[in-house]
């Protein structure tokens, strides 16, 4: 996607009662418009989840158990 394309916007229709509800909802949250709120929600929905590296492995779990054992917490 080019830089100029990224800045382009188009219109999506949503029911007016929903629009009003979102207007109510974003009050005091830092979102400045219904559009920015809807865009944020949709971006999060379509975003590909990053493959998170497993921070705590099976081996880690075994080592933690060994440590708890050395402390006398588990037998």
């Amino acid at each position, binding site marked *: 996607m080019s830089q100029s394309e990224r800045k382009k916007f188009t219109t999506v229709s949503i029911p007016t009662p929903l629009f009003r509800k979102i207007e109510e909802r974003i009050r005091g949250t830092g979102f400045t418009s219904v559009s920015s709120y809807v865009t944020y929600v949709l971006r*999060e929905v379509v975003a590909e989840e990053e493959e998170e590296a497993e921070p*705590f492995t099976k081996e*880690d*779990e075994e080592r*933690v158990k060994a*440590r708890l054992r*050395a402390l*006398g*917490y*588990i037998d």
Partner: protein
Amino acid sequence: MKERPRVLVLGLDGATWNVIKPLVKEGRLPTIAKLMNNGCCGDLESSIPDYTFPAWKCYSTGKNPGKLGVYGFWGVDMAKGKFFLHNSASFKSKELWDYLGENNITCGVLDMPTTYPCKQINGFMISHGAPRPSGYTYPEDLEKELKNRFNYKIDPDYLFELGRDAAIPSIKEVTNQRFDVAHYLFKEFDPSFLHVTIFNIDPIQHHYWRDMEEGNVRYGKVIEDFWALIDNGIKGLLNEFCDGETYVILMSDHGFAAQKGEFRFVKWLSEKNLLKLKKPKFPLSGLLFRLGLTRDNVFSMVGRTRIVPLLRSHLPKGILRKVAALFPVRIGVVDMSLLGGSIDWGKSKVIPVPTGPLHINRNAFASQDEYEKFREALIIEIKEIEEPKAGEKFAREVYKGEEIYFGKYVDRAPDLIVLHNEGYTSAGTTRGREMWNYPTRGWTGVHKPQGIFLACGPGIKKGIEIEGAKIYDLAPTILHIFDIPIPKDMDGRVLKEIFEEDSVLARGEIRYQDVDEKARIRELIRELKARGKI
């Protein structure tokens, strides 16, 4: 603009007034005595349960476990039929240092349990109890610095796997090192907020409590000497880095009391056919236990012959540790086999988490109504359990999860939480013939919910005792000291009663902030994705 405050929190794991106050009276803890005279102190009520997990995170988030999703060291996966260990990523919340960092305040966190894996903050973090000798610091290269400068040890060389003699010098060495590292970090980073945990008070008090109470010649002074070492360490830090303008807070995640009796809860449940256990695959540990060949017995026997010190200096420590691990510990606080799969989950109505809370297998009941009736009846039965010698009730109270927890993750809470009367514990083991066990060695000191709170600094009352402080109150109180709005989803309150009436902190309005809406949406959507809903 007024100057930014500086706050030092010393988190003393398991610190308890019933040990500290008599030692202060005897003049053994001059630094803590001085802090008590210059500040405000009182009990600090812990989380339920009063364990390392989740208590430390209840402090740093100001939230109850229902909002964090963690109710103890072990989580329960009913669907898969297994226990799993929690780690820092299991807790779903921002912490005190995240909010401080967002306001450009430099923070440091040293050795607080529940912080591994490490995370990025505005400053530095050194995780507690890392299972690997790497990846435990932020920034990453701090680790190299700690190794080069201090030969930093995540844990003492020896804990209690070789009996009690080897543990003492190793634990003292690591504790002194924590104070040295705190000095270095203060100097190097000059953080406005520093949290330092001194963890090993907890195992020391577990293992030497009875010796202290009985005035045992060999081990009777271990706890006292350890506290003197801590007092001296605090003195060094205060002398070098804290002037009268620094806020100093001493706190603990829970207190301690004498072990009065250990109820074999798992055995009780299994005899009632509420818990089904498979036959053990490796009966060696149980056999050694019955023969009295526990780790402590074996090593105190051979220890007297000087074999252990000799082996210790000549053998690589890994080998000796592995040999030691073959022997069961004396009281078997938590039976490894229970964690390792000896429970028949499908046939059990009640799954006891090895440290006490109970999960009920809802699949074992035809209807919600049947489940509720069973739960009510079980509460009554547990409340009737009595320790036969003193005739005291085992349970102070039995709660349903939803009665004490609230928040998004309350559905993960145990079905029943048994609060023990002081000094009683649940044994996570089926070993032993009797229903009650009275340990004379091993864990003779046990947790109690009343930890310590002590604060001094500009505008804080002097020589005053307060009541009613809770572990959840510290995060909001510290944010108020920094004049940062308190997130509305924190459960604690600002401890306004500690501030002198005419001080800025007492007069100043307590400001609140809404929960970060973007973070909330992101988390919600991620969860829906993980559950395959979108």
